[in-house]
């Protein structure tokens, strides 16, 4: 079962095509994660440095105002337009939310990019499989939105 022993880095010749797909997606995820980390980090620094969240009801000197949930009323951005508006005003919460949105988008982008990679590899079975996953993802997103 556990066949040939090799030293050093993995270099399975027979798996070269698969490996390039994996490496490509690995880079995509790594840079996506770093981008998200940077944006969230800048947001947190801005929050601490300025002492303001960008929302009057969420005050840094009152922990309760930051972590209490009030149904139907969020003291932070909950839509993309709100994030964009907040960014234009340089609000710390909007910067953090942008970083979180980058993080959330990453797995979906990963699936989308995988389709392209499999197209380049001319691996049509996996183009189909991955396209199915992406359509289910988008479907569940829109169903969730509709069910609100």
């Amino acid at each position, binding site marked *: 079962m556990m066949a040939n022993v090799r030293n050093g880095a993995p270099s399975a010749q027979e798996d070269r095509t698969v490996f390039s797909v994996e490496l490509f997606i690995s880079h995509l995820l790594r840079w996506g994660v770093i981008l998200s980390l940077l944006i969230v980090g800048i947001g947190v620094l801005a929050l601490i440095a300025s002492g303001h969240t960008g929302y009057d009801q969420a005050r840094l000197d009152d922990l309760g105002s930051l972590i209490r949930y009030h149904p139907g009323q969020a003291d932070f951005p909950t839509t993309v337009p709100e994030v964009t508006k907040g960014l234009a005003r340089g609000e710390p*919460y909007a910067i953090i939310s942008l970083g979180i949105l980058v993080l959330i988008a990453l797995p979906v982008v990963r699936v989308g990019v995988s389709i392209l990679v499999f197209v380049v590899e001319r691996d049509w079975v996996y183009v189909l499989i991955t396209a199915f996953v992406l359509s289910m993802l988008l479907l569940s997103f829109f169903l969730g939105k509709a069910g609100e």
Partner: protein
Amino acid sequence: MAAIVFLVETFLVAAGAGVLGSMLGLGGGVILVPVLTLVLGLDIQYAIGASIVSVIATSSGAAAAYLRDGVTNIRIGMVLETATTTGAITGAFVAAYIGGSALYLIFAVVLLYSAFVMFRRRDVELPVGVQMGRLAGMLGLGGSYYDVALSQQVRYNVRGVRYAMPLMFIAGAVSGLLGIGSGVLKVPAMDIAMKLPMKVSTATSNFMIGVTAAASAGVYFMRGYINPFVAAPVALGVLVGAAVGTRIMMRTRSTWIRRLFVLVLVVVAVQMLAKAVGLK
């Protein structure tokens, strides 16, 4: 000042969740939700939002490392994701018709059974004598990775795809129904039904969990569950934790990873039993 303390505490808890989650193919909600709600006094809605951010951060952070090292089997992940995503949608639809406590009870029993079967395999470092399944062969699911703990290249066959697919469908549906990460079901399914090496199971589970979570995360964001004040330290902490956890995992023997996983299964089962009988 209290705000800064909260940020630091949440960061540290999230880092711990990131280490454990990235090692075991889980999202880290097992640690995060109870600690954030019971110890740090966060409301459950924000804890759920934090948990979903944690799943996605663990998934992407760990997958970047595991893909580079060749431990993640991307094809197995893609094939099984067709079942988990379909299951997640189905789960969301039937959620309105299925009662809570019976479901928690069934789920707890399933977890305890998985824990029992995996515990019996506790001394299995690598699967032996696995024949390539027909479907697995057609889909090219076999693979190999370099095991740092064993200092050797491990090649493995895959079987049981036809058993794993319905299990993955159920895993996706349960995560939609109970709002818990489906890693606790995905890893046993790959370990028990498909006979994958333990590291391939946890790494591939890690790869998959982010996709299902991303769909719900969009919805939670719009519902106002993802509070930036909580999500920021969680995302930063989990990503740092995952960077550490992936390194530990690569250097740890599979037998120990499986034992740790069994322990977590039992803890989650107890949490579910408590919910079934109406405790918090």
